């Protein structure tokens, strides 16, 4: 009877795992945040020795991948354009068709159709669109909505449009009307 017990356990384990994988691919998942490029929003004390024990865990929702409608300041998870095996978490600064600039440099970049500009909150140590340019929206794998670990920082992640981002849409004027 031990074999039938083991068989039952295996069956339950396999069904639980396939349901978990499906839900995590299509609806919501929980992932750890590595690195300090989004301090102080995530991992505010990164750089210390206890990094791996005290990583933040965040809730990522995948419903946004139906329509790809994002807003400024959304924190998203995306596959790196330089290495398809890595995923990064950054904030969307600018949407397709807009012109983007920051106070710090005088370049103005036009974001092409279907792309977006992502930046980390910790501008000093963040590899983001400043290095690899605007990324296609198709690389985005989900939107971060809540922090679920550590318990003292459980809460929603707000979409903040940073004050030093200048992102504007130039209206097309049709002349003669």
């Amino acid at each position, binding site marked *: 009877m031990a074999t039938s017990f083991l068989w039952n356990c295996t069956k339950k384990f396999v069904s639980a795992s396939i349901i978990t*994988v499906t839900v995590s691919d299509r609806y919501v998942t929980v992932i750890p945040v590595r690195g300090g490029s989004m301090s102080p929003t995530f991992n505010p004390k990164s750089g210390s020795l206890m990094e791996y024990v005290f990583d933040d865990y965040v809730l990522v929702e995948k419903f946004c991948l139906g329509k790809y409608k994002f807003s400024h300041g959304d924190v998203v998870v995306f596959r790196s354009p330089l*290495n398809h095996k890595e995923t990064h978490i950054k904030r969307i600064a600018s949407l397709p068709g807009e012109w983007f600039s920051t106070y710090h440099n005088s370049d103005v970049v036009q974001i092409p159709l279907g792309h977006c500009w992502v930046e980390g909150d910790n501008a000093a140590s963040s590899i983001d669109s400043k290095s690899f340019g605007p990324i296609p929206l198709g690389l985005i794998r989900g939107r971060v909505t809540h922090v679920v670990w550590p318990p003292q920082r459980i809460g929603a992640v707000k979409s903040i449009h940073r004050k030093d981002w200048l992102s504007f849409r130039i209206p097309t004027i049709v002349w003669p009307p």
Partner: protein
Amino acid sequence: MRFVGYIAQWRSAAKEALERTAIAVKFLCCLHLTSNYLCSPCHAYGVSMLPTLNVAGDVLLADHLSPRIGNVGHGDLVLVQSPLNPRIRLTKRVVAMEGDTVTYFDPKHSEAAQVAVVPKGHVWIQGDNVYASRDSRHFGPVPYGLIQGKVFFRVWPPDSFGLLGQ
């Protein structure tokens, strides 16, 4: 007394309904796993891949495991999300991988050949019909992460049923 009988009936009916739902949910999850990680059918239409694929539309089988393990190379037909609109999937051929230098010509813009270097983590995709295809010659190299599957088999139309090669 009849009330207790009803409760017992209801309980067994509910248990059976729950079991049936569990089987349906497990089946749908297996379907999701197969079509996302193993193999899925897709419908491709348009002129950009003539003569390999027909204008009216072909049903193809795409394997989703190969891009994940890095098994995409020169000459492969791939399903890739369009960098201009993430809701559209294109079927194109990989002409060059990262680090390669591509010599291409765009018949609509100029007669001269142009050269580009494919950066790290990107691929250069082109449609087989160079005269009517919007591909990397127009929107540049695309990141490897946008590749969703490798097309290896054609199911419909039945007279061209078979493996799709290089």
